[in-house]
Each structure stands twice: as structure tokens, then as C-alpha cells.
């Protein structure tokens, strides 16, 4: 059986990106004065595994480039070269470049050769520094430069773009053999059982392509109908043309292992030197296991990727050998582009899941299976007296299913550390460029939020953090003059609060200049002369497009674009933004995001015939109302004496205009809830159990309803509403207490 490498390609990308993140954070941690060897080891290991992986997949541009990084890192960790900010910079830009290359390969795009050569040059300079200083250097590292660009050419050709420019430079080892224009025509007709012997034609062809330029022609005429196809038997045969200087014996050697299982005819090739690599698609067909499932999309992807991989292998020597070969590789572009694009599209989204979550799922499926077998047992020998048993079983089934559903929803939840990962780099780069010193801390990395929300929050976070460095933190001199430590502080913290995810970005910089901002807004005509605004309203102006307190636009900020985009992005997630600032002390930006699609621990309760859910985090206490502690206020409101304080009582049925089962407060049940230090006693008919619920949006198909955060689907399939405590507080204060509708009598009259 062949090993289809393409299926691991996605994993390779994921791991490489992770490796890059590790390298990045390691490099940022690196203190030039006291380099931590352990950190250097970590960075080195990450680079090394990327190199290894790239090598396995034949991504020579990547592996060559990483090799150079590795060389530099190796010297650093061996102490042969000192860690300087320049080295770190060069390595960081190399990380960026590598990320760009990987992304380009993943997206089937052309590589940015400019960025590559720039990063390469930076690395080479660092390498040369030491080489000039001592032992004459390592030729390998230096000379790999042309090979690297050759790799780019190969990769370019492979990705369906022209690789002509750099191809002649490809001084790879195989090019050294030279092409005499000779070669071999190989007829390869394997027996049907070839695959069962553990041989893989694709591997043979890869070995052949190392000898020279290989053209593969596949004959699929023998293929039976799809239904009759046996994935384990090989029905294909191949015509191969190998342009090489190798001897027949060398070619035969490649087939040594399959001699007994195939008809192999090798004849000298007459004719042109560079055969056209037309049918790269055919090269993919040795992946026989993908043929039977060709109908399914996944198979298409695999096949496409395999085609690309095989074609890449075939195109490689062609590109390095001669311009004819390059032309051939270029020619193959349209044929492959489709398949490659398909592959990219299908593999675009994936998620890494904590093994623990999967273990939970497996346990649950196990339970489900047990329940199922128990039920079928009852079903087989059913009699009326076993009814209770059946009901128990069904109840268990229901519970299993629900738990399973919840756990599966949980898989979508990812820790916010994914969104955090880019931030230290942003702070590092921006502060360096602006000559500022910033200490950056991150908290609440394990706070989970939905993957979709997470993806959309990354850009706003980057922008806000960059803004804090640029606008918030002052120059070291200015800070010292103000009696503050020269090093500014920026922190980001994420936590769950009352059905929301709160992300706070705090800096200890100069704060927002209220007057200046207001002045600018007045000048821009956004605020009327003489109109007075509250602090919150003024700070909200920073999100207005085209408004910036910076007098000059810098590379980083000051054009007044961006903040409006931040606000729009957060709004599109139904979130809100809040800015607090104290002159000279700093600014705090609070983002509040709803947990749509996510899971919430809720306390279920009942009012009238309806079940409601209140987020458990908001619940402070549930108690039985002591009539003596209830007092009226101006005949309208009621308060409850609770823990040395008076808490307003909310009768939910009044607020929601429903018919309760109980009107009498005394002896009834009350849930004390909290939102931002405001307490509320919610009077309910009955308390039910606590359970995790999946939050569903009410807004998706309807509207935002005051006092309601969303809805969920209960075990019995009915919908229950989730209370929004902040909204309730507001409603109970009479803020938006007016019902959305005119009085009912009125409409009845009208009818």
C-alpha cells in the first residue's frame, strides 16, 4: 500500500504554523544581553521540524530556507555567534517570510520572491558576519543560495506558475550530472497484485525522477467499471520517458523490487532532450486507493494534492535541467490548476481540538452504545411489565444524546490564546519602530470562545494593541518627565462575564486628550459648538472614521482609519466597545462579546408555563422570600433586605407580561442576580435544575429583545429564553420598560 503523503500535508501546514508561532514568541523572548539557551533550543527545534517536514513533502524552497535559519540558530545556541538585536530581527523577518511562503504554498499562490530574497539576504548577512570573522565559513550555507532560488523555481512551476526565471540557477546536485540528451523509454505493466506486495508505483517514479527528467504516461484503459473496481488491484500501466545520462542498469535498479511482479521493457530513447511533462494528472493515478472513492469530494482533494505532489516531483528535474523542461513544466499549469485550487479550498478550515475533549466524546459514544444495546435488548423481549425499564432506557438515551450534542458544540470552542498569539510580535515591532519600551502581558489565555468569533476578533485586537503602543504609551523620556517608569505597560485580559466574553486592553500611557479630541471633532463638524458631551461620548469619537488625535500620520496609525473598522467588526459580532481614560494614567478599552453559538452554564427556572434560563455566573444566591424583609418603595417598587443591602425585586411576570402561578412574594422563590455590581432579586415560580445550554441567537431570524440574551433548545425540543441580566437591570429601572407594542386593547378595538 502506498503512503499518500498529501493527507499529511494539511497537518504539516498546521504544525509548521504552530512552529512558526513558537519560533516567533521564542525570538521575542530572547534577551540579547542574556540569551536563554533553552529558548534558543526551542526555536531551533521548531525550525528543525519545519525543515524536516518540508523535506518530506519535497518543498525544497522551504527546507533550503529553513536550513539557513537553522544554521544561524545552531551557531547562536552553540555560542559561536552572539545574539544581537539584528540577528533577532533577521530571524523574525525570516519567520515572517517563511510564514508567507507556507501560506502561499497552501493557497496555491506564487511565492513572493522579493520578500524571500530580502529575508534570505538578511540571514546571509548575519551568517556572513561570523564567517568573515573566523574560519572561512561553511560553504554549504552560502552556496545553498542558488539552490534555494532553484527550489523556488521548482515550487513555482509546481504551483502552476512560471518558474523560468530562477530555474537555470538551480545548482542542485542532480543538475551536476549533466544531460547528454540520452534517455530511456520504459514500459511498465505491473501485475494486478503489485500493490499487495507493498510496492508503490509513485515511489518508483519519484526514484526515477531523481535520475533525470521523467515523463509519465498512464494507461487507464484496463480500469474496470467503478462498481467493479477493487482498490487493491492495480489495473494501470505506464509508459515512462526518462531523459537522463544514467545507464540502463541504474534505471533497472529502480525496478529491482518489482521485477517479478511486472513487465518491464527498457529501450533507449531516441529523439529530443526535453520531453513535455504533459500529463501530470496521470502521475497521480498510482494512488489507487483514491480511485474507488473518486466520487467523493475528499478523494478529489487527495487526488488533486497527490497529482500536485507527483507532478512536482516530475517537474523538478525538468526545471533544473533545461529551459525546455521549464517550458514543459509551465505548460502543465492549466491542467493542474483546477485540482490544486480544489485542494486548497477544501483544506482551508480546520480546528485543533484538545485531546481531552475528544476523550469525553469517546466516553459518551461508549455510553450511547451501551444504552442502545440495552434498548434493543428490551425491544427483543418486550412485555408490558418492562415498560418502566423501557422508559428508563429512553430517558438515558435522551441524556446521552444531549450530552453528546453539547460536547460536540464544545469542540468549536477554542481558547483565546490563538487570537493572542500575534500580539507580542505587534507590540515588539511597533514599539521598536517608535523607539518606545513596552512591557506586554496577557491574561486569560484559556478563556474559550467560539472559533468564528475568535477569527473575527483577531484583527480588531491587533489594531487596538498597536494603537495602545502608538497613541497610548509615551516616549521613555516623556514618561520619565511625568514621573513614570520609562517602560510602559500594556496588558490584555480576557474573561467570561454574565454570558459575555470581556476582553480588556489596558495601558498606562498618556490617556486620551479629551479636549484635543473634542476640538478635532468640532473642527470636523461632528460636534456642534457649545454642545457638551459626556466623557463616554467623547471617547466614543475615537471610533469615528477620519478622526485622529495624532497630528501626523505615521506608518502605524494616525490616519483615523482603523478604529471605525474595529468598531464595525465588533458590532458585527453583536459586541460592544467601551473606552475609559484618565489623562496621564492610561486608557482601558473593554470589548464585550456575546457568546452566540457558545455554551453557557445556566440555572433553569419557571414563571407561569414558561421556562427561562439565567446564566449561572450571574446568580449570587437563590432563596426563599421572607415576607418580613420585603418593603415597598413609594408604593410602586419593592426591595428586599439582603446581606445588609436593599435589592430591588423584579417580578418577571410583570416585566414580561405573562401570567404567573404565584403572586405572593412571601414564601416564594427568588434568585439574586448580579450585573456589574448591581443586584436584582428576580421573583420566580419555581427553580429547576442547572444545566449547560447551547446559546442560540434570537436575532438571527428575529430581533434583539430587551432583557433577553438569546434562546436555547431544551431536552424536549422546546425553546427557552435566556435572560440578559444587564437588560433586566435596565428594564427594572424603567429605562426601556415601555413595551414594544401599543396596549393590546387598542389593537383589539381596531380589529
Amino acid at each position: 500500500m502506498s503512503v499518500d503523503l498529501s493527507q499529511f500535508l494539511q497537518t504539516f501546514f498546521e504544525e509548521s504554523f504552530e512552529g512558526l508561532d513558537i519560533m516567533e514568541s521564542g525570538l521575542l523572548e530572547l534577551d540579547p544581553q542574556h540569551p536563554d539557551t533553552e529558548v534558543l533550543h526551542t526555536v531551533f527545534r521548531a525550525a528543525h521540524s519545519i525543515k524536516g517536514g518540508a523535506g518530506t513533502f519535497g518543498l525544497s524552497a522551504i527546507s533550503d530556507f529553513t536550513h539557513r535559519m537553522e544554521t544561524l540558530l545552531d551557531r547562536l545556541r552553540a555560542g559561536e555567534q552572539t545574539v544581537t538585536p539584528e540577528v533577532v530581527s533577521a530571524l523574525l523577518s525570516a519567520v515572517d517570510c517563511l510564514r508567507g511562503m507556507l501560506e502561499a504554498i497552501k493557497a496555491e499562490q506564487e511565492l513572493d520572491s522579493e520578500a524571500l530574497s530580502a529575508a534570505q539576504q538578511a540571514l546571509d548577512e548575519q551568517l556572513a558576519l561570523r564567517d568573515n570573522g573566523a574560519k572561512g565559513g561553511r560553504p554549504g550555507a552560502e552556496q545553498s543560495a542558488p539552490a534555494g532560488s532553484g527550489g523556488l523555481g521548482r515550487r513555482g512551476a509546481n504551483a502552476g506558475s512560471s518558474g523560468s526565471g530562477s530555474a537555470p540557477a538551480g545548482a542542485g546536485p542532480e543538475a551536476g550530472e549533466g544531460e547528454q540528451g540520452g534517455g530511456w523509454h520504459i514500459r511498465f505493466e505491473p501485475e494486478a497484485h503489485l500493490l499487495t506486495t507493498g510496492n508503490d508505483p509513485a515511489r518508483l517514479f519519484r526514484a526515477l525522477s531523481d535520475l533525470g527528467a521523467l515523463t509519465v504516461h498512464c494507461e487507464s484503459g484496463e480500469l474496470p467499471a467503478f462498481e467493479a473496481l477493487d482498490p487493491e488491484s492495480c489495473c494501470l500501466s505506464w509508459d515512462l520517458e526518462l531523459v537522463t545520462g544514467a545507464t540502463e542498469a541504474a534505471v533497472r535498479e529502480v525496478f529491482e523490487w518489482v521485477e517479478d511482479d511486472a513487465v518491464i521493457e527498457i529501450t533507449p530513447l531516441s529523439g529530443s532532450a526535453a520531453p513535455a511533462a504533459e500529463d501530470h494528472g496521470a502521475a497521480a493515478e498510482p494512488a489507487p486507493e483514491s480511485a474507488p472513492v473518486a466520487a467523493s469530494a475528499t478523494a478529489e482533494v487527495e487526488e488533486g494534492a497527490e497529482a500536485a505532489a507527483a507532478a512536482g516531483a516530475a517537474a523538478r528535474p525538468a526545471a533544473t535541467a533545461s529551459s525546455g523542461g521549464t517550458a514543459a513544466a509551465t505548460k502543465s499549469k492549466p491542467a493542474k490548476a483546477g485540482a490544486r485550487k480544489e485542494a486548497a479550498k477544501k483544506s482551508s478550515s480546520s480546528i485543533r481540538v484538545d485531546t481531552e475533549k475528544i476523550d469525553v466524546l469517546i466516553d459518551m459514544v461508549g455510553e450511547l452504545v451501551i444504552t442502545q444495546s440495552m434498548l434493543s435488548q428490551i425491544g427483543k423481549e418486550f412485555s408490558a411489565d418492562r415498560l418502566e425499564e423501557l422508559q428508563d432506557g429512553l430517558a438515558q438515551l435522551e441524556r446521552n444524546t444531549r450530552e453528546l450534542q453539547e460536547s460536540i458544540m464544545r469542540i468549536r470552542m477554542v481558547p483565546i490564546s490563538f487570537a493572542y498569539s500575534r500580539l507580542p510580535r505587534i507590540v515588539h515591532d511597533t514599539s521598536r519602530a517608535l523607539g518606545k519600551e513596552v512591557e506586554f502581558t496577557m491574561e486569560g489565555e484559556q478563556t474559550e470562545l467560539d472559533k468564528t468569533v475568535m477569527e473575527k476578533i483577531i484583527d480588531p485586537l491587533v489594531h487596538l494593541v498597536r494603537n495602545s503602543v502608538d497613541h497610548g504609551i509615551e516616549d521613555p523620556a516623556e514618561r520619565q518627565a511625568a514621573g513614570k517608569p520609562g517602560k510602559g505597560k500594556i496588558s490584555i485580559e480576557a474573561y467570561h462575564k454574565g454570558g459575555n466574553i470581556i476582553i480588556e486592553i489596558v495601558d498606562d500611557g498618556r490617556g486620551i486628550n479629551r479636549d484635543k479630541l473634542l476640538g478635532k471633532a468640532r473642527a470636523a463638524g461632528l460636534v456642534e459648538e457649545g454642545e457638551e458631551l459626556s466623557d463616554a461620548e467623547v471617547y466614543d469619537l475615537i471610533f469615528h472614521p477620519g478622526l485622529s488625535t495624532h497630528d501626523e500620520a505615521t506608518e502605524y496609525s494616525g490616519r483615523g482609519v482603523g478604529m471605525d473598522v474595529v468598531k464595525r467588526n465588533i458590532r458585527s459580532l453583536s459586541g460592544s466597545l467601551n473606552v475609559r481614560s484618565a489623562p496621564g494614567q492610561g486608557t482601558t478599552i473593554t470589548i464585550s462579546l456575546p457568546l452566540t453559538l457558545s455554551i453557557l452554564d445556566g440555572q433553569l427556572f419557571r414563571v407561569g408555563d414558561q421556562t427561562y434560563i439565567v446564566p449561572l455566573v450571574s446568580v449570587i444566591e437563590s432563596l426563599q422570600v421572607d415576607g418580613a424583609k420585603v418593603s415597598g418603595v413609594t408604593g410602586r417598587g419593592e426591595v428586599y433586605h439582603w446581606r445588609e443591602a436593599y435589592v430591588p425585586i423584579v417580578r418577571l411576570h410583570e416585566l414580561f407580561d405573562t401570567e404567573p402561578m404565584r403572586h405572593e412574594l412571601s414564601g416564594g422563590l427568588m434568585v439574586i442576580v448580579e450585573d456589574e455590581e448591581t443586584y436584582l432579586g428576580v421573583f420566580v415560580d419555581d427553580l429547576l435544575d442547572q444545566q449547560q445550554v447551547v446559546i442560540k441567537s434570537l436575532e438571527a431570524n428575529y430581533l434583539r429583545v430587551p432583557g433577553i440574551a438569546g434562546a436555547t433548545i431544551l431536552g424536549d425540543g422546546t425553546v427557552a429564553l435566556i435572560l440578559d441580566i444587564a437588560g433586566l437591570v435596565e428594564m427594572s429601572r424603567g429605562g426601556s420598560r415601555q413595551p414594544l407594542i401599543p396596549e393590546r386593547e387598542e389593537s383589539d378595538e381596531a380589529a
Partner: protein
Amino acid sequence: MAEQSERQNLADDRTAALGTGADTVDAMQATADGEQYLTFTLGDEEYGVDILRVQEIKGWQRATPIPNTPHYVKGVINLRGTIVPVIDLRERFGMAAQEYSKFTVVVMVKVISGVRERIMGLVVDALSEVYTFQTEQIRPAPEFGAHIRTDFIRGLATVDDSKMVIVLDVDELLSDEDLAIADDQSRVAEAVRTAARVSKESE
């Protein structure tokens, strides 16, 4: 399923009958060109909605009421995991409310406002037919002056030379404002009735 194809046949027959003096080929052409409308009844009035907007048809199931919303919003139901509001069209039009029976149907329609697409359920008395109307067959609703809203009526179509179908524009009917704040019920109801009257007079 059988019922549905029967309906389709019926609709085709009607289309053929409608094609005044046209032969069968023309009638078939008409089926291909025109738009299909699903019609339902409210009392003895017949309403139609673009069939492409109809997502599915369900029997009435108990909805969870949403506090502080117009009374014709009956609440929300669970439609395979999504929360979907259900609107009683009788009450929306200011007609007398009716007890829900086993024939009461909820027509799930797609409502488009701007870039948003929403699914909502319309509670109606009963389903009626599927008709094919040519664009010119749907005559614009007459003007009633500024005080009566007709924007949610796309037009009026006549079937069998006598029966009138009020073709609704669901996007207008279920716009945000209408869902949050009930407009003057009498106006909507009156608009519908006047439309019916004018249409009959004009024949």
C-alpha cells in the same frame, strides 16, 4: 408527495385555462416563464407568496412566547436547531384570531432585508394551491392614498376569472419595524379589504 404533484397538475391545468385562446404549447411556455405562487387562505380570502421563498411547511406547534413583542408574534419555535419566530397572519392583518386546529399550518418563508436573510413562520388557516402567474397577470394594488399601507401587497391576481389572490411581498410584510412595533391594525386590515373591493369593481 402525491398531493403535491396533484396540486402541480391542478396548477398546470389552470394555467392552461388561463392562457386565453392559447394552445397547449403556449400554456406550457407560460408555466416555464411565469412565477409560481403558493396560496393559502385566511378566512375566505386567498393570499399568495412567491414559492421560491417558501422553505417548508409545518403543522402548528406550540411556540415559546417572547416578552414585549407585538401580539401577532406568537413566539419562537425550534426549526432543526435554529430559533425561528412565528407570526400569526390573521392577527397581523387585524382579523379575528382563530383557535389553532390540526389543519393550522405554518409556512416557513425566507425574508430578505438588505443583506440579511431570515426565516420566519406564518400561521395561516390552510394551504390552498400553487398557481403560476405571469408578471403582467399580477396587477398593482390600487392606490388608497397615503393613510393606507399597501407596500406589502405586491399586487392582485385573478384566478378562474373570479377568484382574487392577494400576492404578498414578505420582505415588506415582515420588515424590522413591523416586527417590533405594531402599526395601526385597522389600516392594514382596511388596505386588504379595500384592495379586494376595488379589484372586484374593476372587473
